[in-house]
């Protein structure tokens, strides 16, 4: 549905977006993840036609945004990082204005506004001035505005930034609900948000896409070392000698546990080796009871840090 090829955006010598390619299928919820300044907002601004790319193409259902700007803009609802609200208008006036410039036909305007107000649950503030609304409400008005043109693609730039935890959960639920009928591209620098709402993530760093795929797949690909965390009752020297003989071992890290008389052991193993049974027999042979043992999975945070740091190192 959305096809982006070799997109670049230059600001003088600085490349804000550097040769980015990706595609989004109909009905997908895709999350752009990356630290601040990674080029997420710029990519979205190009995608929605606010900025033009220096190189590369944005094609939506076979139509290039440079050739059919108005057709494509009519199909996209865009919520920029700061919702573009006219503070001197009321919620209803504002949504009506958005309907008009989104070329909604006259008889559709009132029902469209009502549905929008219901969907984001702001019907109670419809006659308030936008400048008097709280940040959370403003964000929701912005979200309602993206729905006015009845678009099939929603582009949401950090939809939950600046909201309190309760509002974040509400907006997140709303996005998941909207995802049933819309193709959604959202960005965030907050990981749990992306992991909870998106089926697929694109991780960006320094203007490039450094990873693209399902979260689980990304986690698996990146797990080039696996780690076992144990709590063992016994002496440090005994544990050390029992474990040091194991094959496939990369590193052992033994520290005193907060539990009296116990040790915390972290074992890093080589890729694709499962040492849990070997560890068990080695320690039971040495009469060192295992109190706890778990394999540590790579979390999204780790993938994220890994990818963004690797890139920085390569510079």
């Amino acid at each position, binding site marked *: 549905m959305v096809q982006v090829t070799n997109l670049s955006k230059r600001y003088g010598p600085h490349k804000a977006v550097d040769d980015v390619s990706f595609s989004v299928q109909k009905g997908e919820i895709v999350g752009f993840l990356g630290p601040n300044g990674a080029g997420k907002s710029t990519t979205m601004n190009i995608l929605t036609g606010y*900025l033009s790319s220096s190189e590369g193409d944005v094609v939506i259902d076979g139509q290039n945004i440079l050739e059919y700007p*108005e057709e494509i803009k009519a199909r996209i609802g*865009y919520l920029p990082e700061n919702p*573009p609200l*006219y503070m001197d208008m009321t919620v209803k006036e504002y949504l009506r204005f958005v309907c008009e410039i989104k070329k909604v036909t006259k008889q559709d305007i009132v029902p469209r506004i009502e549905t929008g107000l219901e969907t984001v649950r702001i019907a109670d503030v419809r006659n308030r001035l936008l400048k008097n609304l709280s940040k959370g409400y403003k964000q929701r008005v912005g979200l309602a505005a993206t729905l006015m043109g009845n678009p099939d693609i929603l582009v949401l730039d950090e939809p939950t930034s600046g909201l309190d935890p309760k509002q974040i959960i509400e907006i997140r639920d709303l996005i998941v609900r909207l995802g049933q009928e819309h193709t959604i591209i959202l960005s965030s620098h907050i990981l749990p948000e992306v992991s909870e709402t998106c089926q697929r993530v694109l991780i960006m760093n320094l203007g490039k896409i450094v990873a693209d795929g399902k979260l689980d797949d990304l986690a698996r690909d990146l797990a080039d070392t696996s780690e076992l965390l144990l709590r063992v009752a016994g002496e440090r020297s005994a544990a050390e000698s029992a474990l040091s003989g194991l094959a496939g071992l990369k590193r052992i890290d033994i520290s005193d546990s907060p539990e009296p008389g116990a040790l915390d052991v972290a074992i890093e193993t080589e890729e694709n080796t499962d040492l849990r049974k070997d560890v068990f027999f080695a320690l039971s042979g040495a009469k060192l009871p295992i109190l706890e043992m778990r394999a540590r999975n790579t979390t999204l945070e780790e993938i994220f840090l890994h990818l963004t740091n690797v890139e920085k190192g390569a510079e």
Partner: protein
Amino acid sequence: MYSIFKREFRGFFETPIGYVFMGLFLLISGFFFAYNHLFTGSAYYSTFLGSIFFIFIFAVPLLTMKLLSEERRQKTDQLLLTCPISVLDIVLGKFFAAAAVFLMTLLVTVLYAVVVGIFGDLAVAETVGAYIGFFLLGLCFISIGLLVSALTENQVTAAFFTFFSLLFVWLLNLVKQVVPSDSLSGIIFAVVAGLAIVAYLYFNTRSWLVAAAAFVILAAAIVLVALLSKGAFNGFIGNVLGWISLIDRYNSFNLGILKLDAVVYYLSFSSVFLFLTVRVIEKRRWA
């Protein structure tokens, strides 16, 4: 375009700006009307509008300062530019909204003409001509203000620069009379203007080749003209300033003559500035 116009027009009266503009305009024009016509008993109304040009310099910046600068500061341009409307629609909607407020204000001053008509002999043709000319002149000033507003994010900066641009345009025909008119200063002016064009080309294209080519062509043109016809640069500075002087062309309206060239001049002057405004906004998206 109509929705932009509607929002903008209403915006003028939801904020104090529309009222301040109308108030200022009517206060100054009312003062001049009372002073020049009521107190002296003069029915020669068609000169009235010509005597209050300077209002534009104070009033137009009020009207245009926030039209585009505020969109950028509040980032609402992100909404407008991602909607299925063209930049031209946006610019025209805003231009007509400002023009409508100006027209409304101007229509109030028709009352003055009515007063003159009741108590004296009103030269109707001259008055109508003067109003048309005055309105067209106002459109030109508004288009200048709109361009300045597109260039900045700060409405105070926009107002300030619009004020000085309009002051410059207003003073042009005074400046024209005092600039030297001999051939040598004309040539010097042409050389300076030519160098400015070359510099502009260089900074836009960053290519020495283009700049050098332009330099050679312009230098050759100046030398040829100066050698071939001796008097060509006599009064050159004044003539150039005359081309862009809006005020000069107003005089024919004053006499009740609708000169086509003056009407076309005013309309094309506004169009050029509106076009430049569109270009400024478009170019920013590519920058």
